[in-house]
């Protein structure tokens, strides 16, 4: 008789090959083994290097946008917008 713990164990068992699809073997005559192209070691290394470079470039882009925003707005960057004030309202206080 199958116990509850065995059912849970079976359901949560990791797949035989849990790598992303592109890392798994291509479909073969024996049946579906996984979709996509199998990358060689060199291709995987190159892709990883490119991914890191893109991440660094995007990070640098964010930093540039942030820095220029601060430079352009100065202390006004910390001021709250007053767009919700009714027309003609006088904003008091600091």
């Amino acid at each position, binding site marked *: 008789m199958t116990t509850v713990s065995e059912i849970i164990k079976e359901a949560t068992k990791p797949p035989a090959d849990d790598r992303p699809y592109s890392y798994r073997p291509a479909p073969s005559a024996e049946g579906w083994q996984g979709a996509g192209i199998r*990358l060689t070691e*060199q*291709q995987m290394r*190159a*892709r990883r290097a*490119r991914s890191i*470079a893109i991440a660094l470039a995007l990070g640098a*882009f964010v930093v540039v946008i942030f820095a*220029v925003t601060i430079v352009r707005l100065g202390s006004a960057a910390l001021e709250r917008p007053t767009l919700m004030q009714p027309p003609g309202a006088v904003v008091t206080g600091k």
Partner: protein
Amino acid sequence: MSLTFARAEPSVAGVGDYIELMKPRVMSLVVFTALVGLLVAPGHVHPVIGLTALLCITVGAGAAGALNMWYDADIDARMARTAGRPIPRGRVTPGEAAGFGFTLAVFSVVTLGLLVNILAAALLAFTIFFYVVIYTVWLKRSTPQNIVIGGAAGALPPMIGWAAATGTLAVEPVLLFLIIFFWTPPHFWALSLYRIEDYARVGVPMLPVVAGERETRRQILIYTLILAPLGVAPWLLGYTGPVYGVAASIFGVAMIALALRVRGEHGSHRASKQMFGFSILYLFLLFAVLLIDQMSGGLFGHFAA
């Protein structure tokens, strides 16, 4: 009916291949001349804004280089000087290079426009357009004047730098533009003199291929004779101190002396190679002295006076 699709091999291109696509050596001269344009401009530019402008100009220049390599991949593969570039070597596909170039071009122009100013962004967009469409696609394979007219693209960076700092243009950045514009033909024709077989093989009508070596050597001398006084012009017009004037005169005389040697050379390319090498040094030194002269705030002028 059955359809067969060729499956592209996954890319093996590394980060270095993409950096190579951006022509880092050309980019370094572009960045330096743009930096000089930015720093000699009047007024104060915030360092963060200045660095952002330089970064955008760098990336824009790289984008133009990548798009040039994409379009010229067919002739690059058959020329000794360019056969080792990433596309002919099979490291990067033409499509990847085109996508990379277009993406960088759009990012650099939009970022420069949003974060610095519209004039600088418009000039950068024009530079990329001029280099890729006017020079690479149109002129390079159709006229021996290709690098004369196309040289305008390489001459624009100091104007972009100036525009980034001031939001306007003036006579001084136009002078810097003219210096690089008239520097380009002697520089590239000196190279093409000893790479003549390469250009002839792929059908690029460089001046030595079309008009012969003798005419090319004559043209090198003519352009150098225009370049040398142009190099001194910023001092003659009162924009710089005498130290710049003296240095520019010495560098100009050296360029003319080399051009004369190239003119008198027969059956050898020794002087052409020296001219090509020295022309790079000439432009670097000229802009470096200009920068030092301007940054010193006339200090050199006081010493000299």
